[in-house]
């Protein structure tokens, strides 16, 4: 594998709230190489969006970030704001989930894309606007020169998401972080946007970190996958490792809980009892233990000892954080 462009080591994010310290992300590692896609999968409260915000350095002031975030070998954590501003939006850019709130309703979309360019390039407004039109055209906005003068409310949801992607791409970033980029979109539009992101990666060799809860999307675009649960990594491996050799009971549960259209429906879906824990509520042992069907077989260890990511024998870089020590079988 090519050298990673983005490396994250032992990332920890703690929020100081009225209710005390909340550990939202509790030590995760990941890396992504140019042109490759890493998917971070998890449910609400798993810390996947907080992780991406920590990498971007855009967390609120009550968040404490520890660990290493290396962009092409350069440490981003602890960098002063003015240094970070030169990198953010330039070398590493974020595509937000909700395009409507990511855009300013008072400015034309062309102005907003141009602004993102002018922040990092000393060019005239006119030249920046020209660049904006070029990007809007690239992301598939028809009649881009004219539409650049329209306001966000004049666009459909899919077109607004394209504008947000154009804004993220305007400086040719080396790393693109997309936080649920298609969740608010219809499935036919989702297919267009995922295709667009794939084209961009092919053309510019952009590394993509895709935050998603949709396993179908992950299967289609990811090279590697990190499954997060309660702020920690449950499993990490290639996309095939996850879908064909899932080693953590939580990953397996997610796969079984997902309804599918390509096979005749099962009478009942496999479920995971209970719901995801709130961050920090599980202090010892495995965070998944209260919902896990295998706890009884492993015993006390799941309650007392926190499992760390451990390589799966003979499966390359495939790792799981589980005391079971063997592959969980499909329960139906």
């Amino acid at each position, binding site marked *: 594998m090519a050298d990673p462009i983005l490396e994250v080591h032992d990332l920890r994010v703690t929020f100081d709230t009225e209710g005390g310290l909340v550990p939202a992300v509790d030590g995760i590692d990941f890396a992504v190489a140019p042109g490759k896609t890493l998917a971070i999968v998890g449910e609400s409260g798993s810390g996947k969006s907080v992780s991406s915000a920590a990498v971007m350095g855009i967390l609120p002031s009550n968040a404490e970030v520890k660990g290493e975030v290396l962009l092409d070998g350069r440490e981003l954590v602890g960098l002063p704001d003015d240094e970070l501003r030169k990198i953010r939006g330039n070398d590493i850019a974020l595509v937000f989930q909700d395009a409507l709130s990511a855009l300013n309703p008072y400015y034309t979309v062309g102005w907003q894309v141009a602004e993102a360019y002018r922040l990092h390039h000393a060019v005239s407004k006119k030249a920046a606007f020209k660049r904006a039109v070029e990007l809007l055209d690239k992301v598939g906005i028809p009649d881009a020169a004219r539409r650049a003068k329209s306001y966000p409310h004049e666009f459909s949801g899919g077109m607004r998401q394209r504008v947000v992607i154009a804004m993220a791409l305007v400086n040719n970033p080396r790393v693109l972080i997309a936080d649920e980029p298609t969740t608010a979109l219809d499935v*036919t539009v989702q297919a267009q946007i995922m295709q667009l992101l794939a084209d961009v990666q092919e053309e510019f060799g952009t590394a993509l970190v895709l935050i998603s809860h949709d396993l*179908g999307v992950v299967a*289609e675009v990811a090279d590697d996958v990190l499954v997060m649960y309660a702020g920690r990594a449950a499993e990490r491996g290639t996309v095939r490792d996850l879908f064909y050799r899932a080693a953590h009971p939580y990953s397996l549960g997610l796969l079984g809980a997902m309804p599918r259209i390509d096979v005749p*429906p099962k009478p009942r*879906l496999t479920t995971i009892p209970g719901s995801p824990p709130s961050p920090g509520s599980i202090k010892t042992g495995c965070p998944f233990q209260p919902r896990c069907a295998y706890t009884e077989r492993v015993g006390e260890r799941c309650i007392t000892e926190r499992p760390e990511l451990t390589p799966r024998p003979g499966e390359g870089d495939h790792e799981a954080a589980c005391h079971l020590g063997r592959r969980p079988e499909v329960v139906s």
Partner: protein
Amino acid sequence: MTEELLRLDEVRKHFGLSGAPWRAAQTVKAVDGVSLVVRKGETVGLVGESGSGKSTLARVATRLLDPTSGRVQIGGKDVTKLRGRRLRPTRRTVQMVFQDPQASLNPRQSVGTILSTPFRAQGTRPTRAQLIELLEKVGLSAEHLERYPHEFSGGQRQRIGIARALAVSPELLICDEPVSALDVSVQAQVLNLLADLRDELGLSYVVVAHDLAVVRQVASRVAVMYLGTIVEEGPADQVYAAPAHPYTKALLSAVPMPEPGVTRDRIVLTGDVPTPISPPSGCPFRTRCYKAEDICATDRPVLEIINGQTEHRAACYFPEPPPPERK
């Protein structure tokens, strides 16, 4: 023939946009001529993208909205013209489960109060035992009766919404995006609950969803909506295995499959859904259709039986041929 719980005939729901004084009034044709029958024991899935009119149709079918024209029959009785108090008997037949359990439960009422409201609306008072029984039906218990909505997780709140709908022992539940606000692992629990309730109580459902896999999981029959009309309808197995309308085919092909490395023929539609203020002439899908010809712009296709399958109908001049038989 089994009993018809719901029958919609050529239902239309148009919303007027009065707009600014200098602009002519416009009409949004949210539902534009839909006929649909739901029989006892069936689960009908209503799928479509945003703006297709599926939620509006659900609200007209429960008579939360008045249809602009057409006829709504519930339990064999014409209820199109009924209003207010006189609709109450029909509420005992049809109930609704809403998308967002956060927004559809009053945060200042305890679960007990929330669950007794439908009884009081019907002029009765529930016993504590009745309320507990309702909670147990949806997998909650007596201890939850005195709690308030904010003390529950999203999945539990949706269970409360379902329990409230079950209070008057309806025969048909109309569920508008019942699981779209839930995490995958919780979504599966609620889908299984709906299946269990169907088996235990003999319930029928209309499930409105944009997620085709969710509908595949629960529905015995499927209706695909586009711009306020049904473009294809039939048994779920047939519609998913052999979609006849180009829109259905494109929609299904766009669903990402959880099979890494498996490439599929995807029909990527261009453009967006046109506005229901000025839908295209003729076939509503023709502006994005890969098969459109001149006739599609002039005459609106109607639902017709295709491939000799009596129950499977599509509104298209050039329906897809059935796939070759698998050996």
